[in-house]
Every structure is written in C-alpha cells, then in structure tokens.
C-alpha cells in the first residue's frame, strides 16, 4: 500500500499545473506557433512521408554476369597496310648530302642535316675514340654513376657557346622540352603558347597540367590581347595572381612553318606583363644568326633576357640528344625535377663526343658556315618562288621550307606523287609527317631542308625537278 495521497500533494499538483498554464499564457505568440509547427512536422515525417528506396546492391550472381558479358575492344584498331608509315624507304650507309636507296644515289633534301655534319670524318673519329675509351652505353641515370666527364664537358661547352651560366643535356631530343615544361609549370600556372608549336612541346604542355592559352601563330596582337585579358582578371584578385606563374612558350624558328618568332616585342611584353620566356631553338640553333647562335643573335636581342633556351643535338649538330641553357638559377632545378633527366639513362658517350666535335667545328668556322647557309637559303627561296605554282612557307633565310600546292590542289595524294616522281629523278624529299591529334594540324606540305654543302647546280636541278613534277601533277 502506497503512501496516502493527501490534500497537500493534490494542492501542489494543481499549483504546478496552474503555473504551467500561466507560463503558456506568458510566452510570446510566435514561440507557440513555432512549437506547434515543429510538432506538426514531426507528425508528418513519422506518418505520412514515403520512405526513400534503398540503393539496390547487386547480387554476386549479377556481378558475375556483368563480368562474363563484358567484351573489350581489340587491343589495336584495324591497320591499313597501305599507310605510308608501313611502306617507308629503307636506307643504307651514311645519310649525308647524298643517300643510297636500293643501290641508287640521290640528293638529300629531306633530313635535318643542315650543316652536313652527318658522316663528317672528324666527328666520326672523335666518336670512335670515345667508344675506345668508354664503351657504348653509360649504364645508368645521371644520379647513379651515369655522369661521365664527357657529359660535363659538353654541358659546359654548350653554355659557353650561348654565353649562359649553365647547360644541361638530355639523351633524347623529343623528351627534352617535354620534360622541361612540366618541371617548372604546375597545375595552377598559366602557359601562353603559340598554336604552331611542334608536337613534342605540345606533349610537354599537356604533361604540365597547367592552364593553356593558345594564341594564333606568330600573331603578337593576339598574344597581347590574351595578356591584357589575363591582367584584367588578375587585378580582381591580386593575392591569387601573385601565386600564379606565367610562361611564354615559343620556338625560335618554327618547324611546322619555317618562320621566325617576333622576339623583340615578346621581350618587351615580358617586362610589362611579368612572364618568363622559354624558347625552343631546335631548328634555329646552328642555322640562324651570324655565328649560328639562333634567333637572339638574328634579332639582336640580349640573350640573358630569355629565361631558358632549349634545343636539340639531332639537327644541325648531327648527334642524338637535347639540351637546355640558361642561368644557373633556372637550369639547376631540372637536375632534380625533370623526369626525362632524373629517371632516364644518360647520353651514350660517343654521341656526346660527336656533339663536342661538332661544336668545335662550329666555333672554328665562326661565321663562314652560317652566312653561307643563310645565303643559299635566300637563293633557294627565290628560285622556288620563280617556279610559280607552289606555295612556299618560311622565311627566306630559313633553311627549312614548306612547299605546298595552291589551295584545293593541296592533297596528300598529289604531294606523294611529287615525292615519288622526285625520287625517280634521284632527288629525295619528304612529306612532313604529323599525327592526327596535333593541336593545330598544319596543312599537308613537303618539308624541304637545305644542306649547306649543296651547290648552285644542285639547287637548280632540284627546282627543275619540282617544276616538272608540278606540271605532271596538275595536268
């Protein structure tokens, strides 16, 4: 039996209840409404809302069915056996001023042998000496006993040639610029890139994952427009802008077009808009300028204003590999961050020795070789324009020219015909090969390359053959 409920308890309860009612009356009106609303919401959620369907998990059987059903594409797409890449000319012997195909000799206007160093006796002798001292391979990357004293010598010579503080060499021309750009430019940075750049540079730009702003080929006004736009954008958020690096990626002499970049104006804009210039001088090294030092010499621009010049040892120098020169501040970074340098075996010493000897020859010749080359290029240019019927792309002093037919006549088929015809007359020329995923695929063209040792008669002969081919192909 519990304690009896006496009058006091009931009275107390009543007072509590009464005070509760009183407090209700005293609360603000909105508070009451709010509480009622909440209670109604809870009631609605509990009673009336439809339950969301739970995501169906696949059963093991269904998963196995999906796995069994899945069919991949074939590893490679069907191959066209008539593709020119599967039917290339196979050469024999030294690919110098003349080449030998199936026993016949023909004049070579197709390979990047600007200074005719391929097959040069002095260079071959030095390469042989290097094999007798070091063997062939370097058997290691630069960091792990792959640095041979001949590499250090080559780097120093290249830096001295360009009058820069330091140089760095790579073992493959394609990988040079493709490794350099990602070493400096990261995800948040901006690259201003000319549309007509070479594929290797495009790969470098892609690998960097930076924001890319393309400007029309050699169009300085378009570049200015892009720079001004970016500047306006920066002024809105100056704090963020101070963490974004900017680079201008250009070539000295464009491989795909044969024309020279407007460097002086680009250097002016550099100081106005505060970007760094990385110039790729693969084609212009050893071909343009009084002493072959490239576009900076040609335009008479202070070379120290360019942050980095990259180039290749595969064209005028006639060896294999690539290099970059610049101030120590810029170049030294690549020794730990450029992938193609750190994670790849170093250049075989015989190729480094060949490059050093080529530089020696270039130094000895000083200006004679290069002036001759520019002179002959000018004459060839004039002769080609005289043929009338070809479009000739490229500067007149450029030893690399692009030849194409006028307008709608310009198809790969016709150009192939011209190349084949020229071969029957013992002139070797080639169509410039591109892959379809180029950013800005150039028009089909024949890439004509002038060897400095070509005589006037040989140039005349070339033009005669081209004239005949033109007549045949437009008939």
């Amino acid at each position, binding site marked *: 039996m519990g304690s009896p409920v006496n009058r006091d308890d009931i009275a107390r309860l009543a007072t509590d209840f009464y005070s509760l009612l009183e407090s209700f009356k005293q609360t603000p009106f909105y508070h009451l409404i709010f509480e009622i609303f909440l209670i109604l919401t809870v009631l609605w959620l509990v009673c009336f809302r439809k339950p969301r369907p739970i995501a169906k998990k696949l059963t093991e059987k269904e*998963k196995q069915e999906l*796995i069994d059903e*899945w*069919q*991949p*594409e074939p590893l*490679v797409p069907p*191959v066209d056996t008539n593709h*020119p890449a*599967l039917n290339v000319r*196979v*050469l024999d012997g030294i690919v110098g001023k003349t080449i030998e195909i199936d026993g016949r000799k023909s004049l070579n206007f197709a390979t*990047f042998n600007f200074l005719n160093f*391929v097959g040069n006796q002095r*260079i071959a002798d030095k*390469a*042989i000496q290097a*094999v*007798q001292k070091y*063997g*062939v391979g*370097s*058997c290691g990357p*630069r960091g*792990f*006993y*792959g*640095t*041979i004293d001949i590499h*250090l010598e080559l780097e120093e010579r290249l830096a001295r040639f360009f009058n820069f*503080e330091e140089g760095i060499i790579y*073992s*493959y*021309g394609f*990988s040079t610029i*493709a490794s350099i750009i990602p070493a*400096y430019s990261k995800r948040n940075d901006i690259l201003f890139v000319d549309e007509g750049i070479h594929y290797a540079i495009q*790969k470098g730009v892609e*690998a960097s994952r930076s924001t890319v702003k393309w400007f029309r080929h050699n169009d300085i006004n378009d570049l200015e427009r892009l720079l001004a736009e970016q500047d306006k954008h920066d002024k809105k958020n100056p704090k963020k802008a101070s*963490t974004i*690096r*900017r680079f201008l990626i250009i070539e000295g002499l464009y491989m795909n077009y044969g024309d020279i970049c407007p460097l002086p104006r680009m250097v002016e804009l550099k100081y106005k808009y*505060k970007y*760094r210039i990385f110039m790729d001088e693969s084609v212009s090294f050893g071909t343009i300028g009084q002493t072959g030092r490239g576009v900076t010499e040609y335009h008479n621009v202070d070379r*120290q204003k360019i942050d980095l010049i990259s180039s290749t040892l595969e064209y005028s120098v*006639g*060896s*294999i590999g690539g290099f970059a020169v610049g*101030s120590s*501040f*810029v170049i030294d970074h690549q*020794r*730990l961050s450029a*992938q*193609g340098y*750190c*994670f790849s075996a170093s250049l*075989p010493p015989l190729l480094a020795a060949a490059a050093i000897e080529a530089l020696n020859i270039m130094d000895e010749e000083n200006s004679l070789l290069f002036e001759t080359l520019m002179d002959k290029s000018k004459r060839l240019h004039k002769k080609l324009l005289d043929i009338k019927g070809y479009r000739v792309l490229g500067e007149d002093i450029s030893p690399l020219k692009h030849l194409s037919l006028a307008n709608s006549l310009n198809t790969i088929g016709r150009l192939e015909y011209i190349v084949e015809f020229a071969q029957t007359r013992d002139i070797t020329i*080639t169509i410039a*090969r591109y892959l379809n995923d180029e950013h800005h695929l150039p028009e089909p063209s024949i890439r004509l390359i002038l060897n400095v040792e070509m005589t006037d008669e040989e140039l005349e002969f070339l033009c005669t053959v081209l004239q005949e081919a033109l007549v045949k192909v437009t008939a």
Partner: protein
Amino acid sequence: MAKNSPKQKNKSYSNIGFNTPVPEHPSLNEVYEDTPFSEAFWTYLNYVILNIFGWFRDLLRNARIENRKGSAENNPPGFVPLYQSYESFYTRNVYQRIADCFNRPIGSVPGGTLDLLERVTDDYNWSFNFTGDKVKTINLGSYNYLGFANNSGQIAENVINSIKTSGVSAASAAQECGTLTQHRKLESLLAEFLGTEDAIAFGMGFATNALNIPTLVGKGCLILSDELNHTSLVLGSRLSGAVIKVYKHNDMIHLEKLLRDYIVSGQPRTHRPWRKILIIVEGVYSMEGSLCKLPELIELKKKYKAFLYLDEAHSIGAMGSRGRGVVDYWKCDVNDVDILMGTFTKSFAAAGGYIAGKKELIDHIRIASHAQTYAVSMSPPVVEQVISVLNLLIDENEEHEGRQKINQLAWNTHYFRQRLTKMGFIVYGHPHSPVVPALLYSPSKIAAFNREMLKRGVAVVTVGFPATPLVLGRVRFCLSASHTKEMLDEVLKHAEEVGDLLNMRKSKLNPKRPFHETEL
C-alpha cells in the same frame, strides 16, 4: 674459349658458374622482413632533427645572417617566384647535405670496376672541384647485368665499323627518311630473340613508355598499374587520358578485386562499359628487387579479358635460364603477354627501348607512335651494339660467351644474396633477381654507408626518400656478370665492416654471422 684458360681471372671461377642455380621450378619465395621498431624510431627522429635544423638555417638565411648559397633570380622584382619555397626545403636542407653521394662523375667504362673522378667540396656540397685524380673502385652501381659494357673486343669493333659506314645519326624521323637497314635487322633479331611475331625499337627507354602507352589506350579505358611502377609508365599512363587505378605491389588479390569492381561499375559517372583494360607491370622492380607474379597475372588477364603490358627494363637478359626475361624465368608462353616492352640500357649496355608483340600491334605502333613520327631514329652504332649482343644471346651454345655470361650472372646473384643474408643484413627482393637492396632506414646511414664504402674502394648506390618510402632508405647492389668471385668477396668483407660500424646487421630472420662463417 677454353674453360680452364688462365688468361682472365674470372675464367678460373666460371667453372663454378656453370652450375646454373636457376631451378626447374622457379621460386615464389620473396621475404620482406618487418622494419625493426628501433630503426623506425631512430629514422623518424633523424627526420625531425633535420627538419628543425632546416627551419633554423632557413631562418638565418632569410635574416641574412647566413649567406644564401646557390644562385639567385636575374629577373627584376615583380615576377612571381619560380619555385615555391617549401618545394626546395627538402633539397636545401636534406638532399644538399648528402649531395656528394649522388651524381658522381666517372671517367671510364662502367664495367665491373669504375674510375671515379675525385672531387672535393669547400662549402659543404654546394659546389665541387675536381682534384684531377681518379679513384679505382668496384662498381656495384651501374646497370651492367651481363657485363657487356666494354671498350674493346669484337662488339666494340663492330660498333666502330658501324660509325665508319653509317655515321653517328640519320637525322630524320623513322617515318620520313630515318629507317636504315640496320633498324630492320635489329627488329627482326629482337623478334627472334623474344619469340614474338614482330618488334620495334626506339632511341630512349623512358620515351618508349611515355610515347607509346597513349597509342594503345585512351579515354574510356582503364589502366591498373602496380604501386611501384617506374615514372615513365606513370607519365605514359597520364598522357593517355585513361582512368588509372593503382593496386598494392604484387598483390594479386587486390588486383582481382579491383578488376571485378571496375568491370561491374564501368566508367565513372556514365557507367558505360570500359573500352579496354590494361594491366601494367614490371618484370623486376628496381627499388625492391622483386619479381612480378607472371603466371598469376596471365591467369587473371585471361579470366577478365584484360591486356597485359610487361616492362622488362631490368629483367631482359638478366633473368631466365636463356636470358629472355621473366617470361623465360616463369616458363610462360610469350604469346600470353600482349605487349612486351624493354630497354637496351641495362643488359645490352647500349641505349634505347623496344616493344614486341603481335604483328598488328607493331604495325599500329609504327603508324601511330609519337616517336616514329617526330623523333629522330636510333643511332646506328648503338643499334650495332644491340645487334652484336643479341647475336651472342641467341646463340644457345653453352660454351659461347652469351650463355657463359647469363650463367655467371645467375651464379653471382645466388652467391652474393646468400652470403649477404646470412651475414645478418635485411635484404629485400626475389632470391634470383640481380638487384639486391639491403635496408638502411635512416637518411644519415644512407650517406654514411655510401661514403664509407667509397673509402674502401666500392661504389654503391644508396637511395632514400622520395625514391623509396620515408623510413625505408636502402643500399641497392646491382650485380654484374663481369664481377668475379674475388670482387664479390671483397665487397662482402667491406660491407661487413661498414655494417658493423653503422649497426645495420639487425635481421631477426637471419641473425648476424661473421663473413668467414657464411661460406656456401
């Protein structure tokens, strides 16, 4: 070449080398001992101290109390700084202290012995000067597995002839005017050596991966890549635009789980089925010394209809009783591997890379490869070196040089690994791989081991972060067929000394024993 000729030193030991220790049933036995707690502790402490000193020194440099070493920007102020200061923190304060252990210039053939150019530093590794002397050392750092790095002999003669007849370069892309008869010869020999239908060669091993993976896979494809894959494979995968998923090193169960999950779920967001699935593995992993589990991989690949890309950079020539790589070692069918890739830098002592497989694959690569279209073709003397080595390796005669070298390497590997392990070092990797990593753990030991061994006339490669995980710094011995038993014994004795100095021989599985007790 008579077996018992007293002319060359290693000839008298090659008799032992002919008992090839590669058993009929290849071993699956790889042992990775756990990191001892004390080592982990001291290593972390090491990094903490380095960091503290680093901050302190950076403070001094910023306050101009200490001279800022290294070069400075030559652009006027207003340009965004070229490097983030924290990126170079590690370089300035950790790497720079031990920079004398890396980038050592050599002045000779990178063979069994090496001539290092002696260099001294006045300012704590910021700059070096050459004294002009050369230090002769035993070379355990170069990738010269079969010992073909020579500057004399028949192969060198062939190379010299090739320079005379074909020059040093063709200066043109392979699709334009750069294909020479030697390139075709190399490719057909390579196909014969590997047992595939066709092969194609390139001028740089790194570029072979980076420029050709994008031609095989693209958007809408899946790449399953091993955790420890080389940078070139990672770069190639990234450039291709495919979705990349990483599985734990050599973990076939994880790989199968990923395969099942991703085939079922399809492409991200759209859930469309994948166009292709490519599994990328390496034959021998150069930092771990481990082998890929090829039979299981082939089984998985067949079960799930994926394609297999095998990068044999370190294993071609070095593994297998016939020197044909891991496929030969595991006795698998070479047609089961879709894409065989390798390099000529290591066992062939040349430069370059190759891809081998079915004819349609190679034809497609000839048409679509970045290297074939834009890059200059391989240098003829280098091609000649590879052709000469291939001719020796294809020759199955046990008396001839090719087989001798393969067997010598196998014997050296077996001998060195056994003795090193018995001496108490913690050694990683597969018992038959010629890459022998022994653990050092802390960055200071990395530097100390390197310098002490150099004092004793042995050139080794020691690596730390970021090439390896933070705590697992190691020394990596690369064995070669040009090492004689005496050279290996000398190295082991020195390693024993230095190991005691640095307190390295802490294996629990193989408690340390002195050198003379570990005779085989």
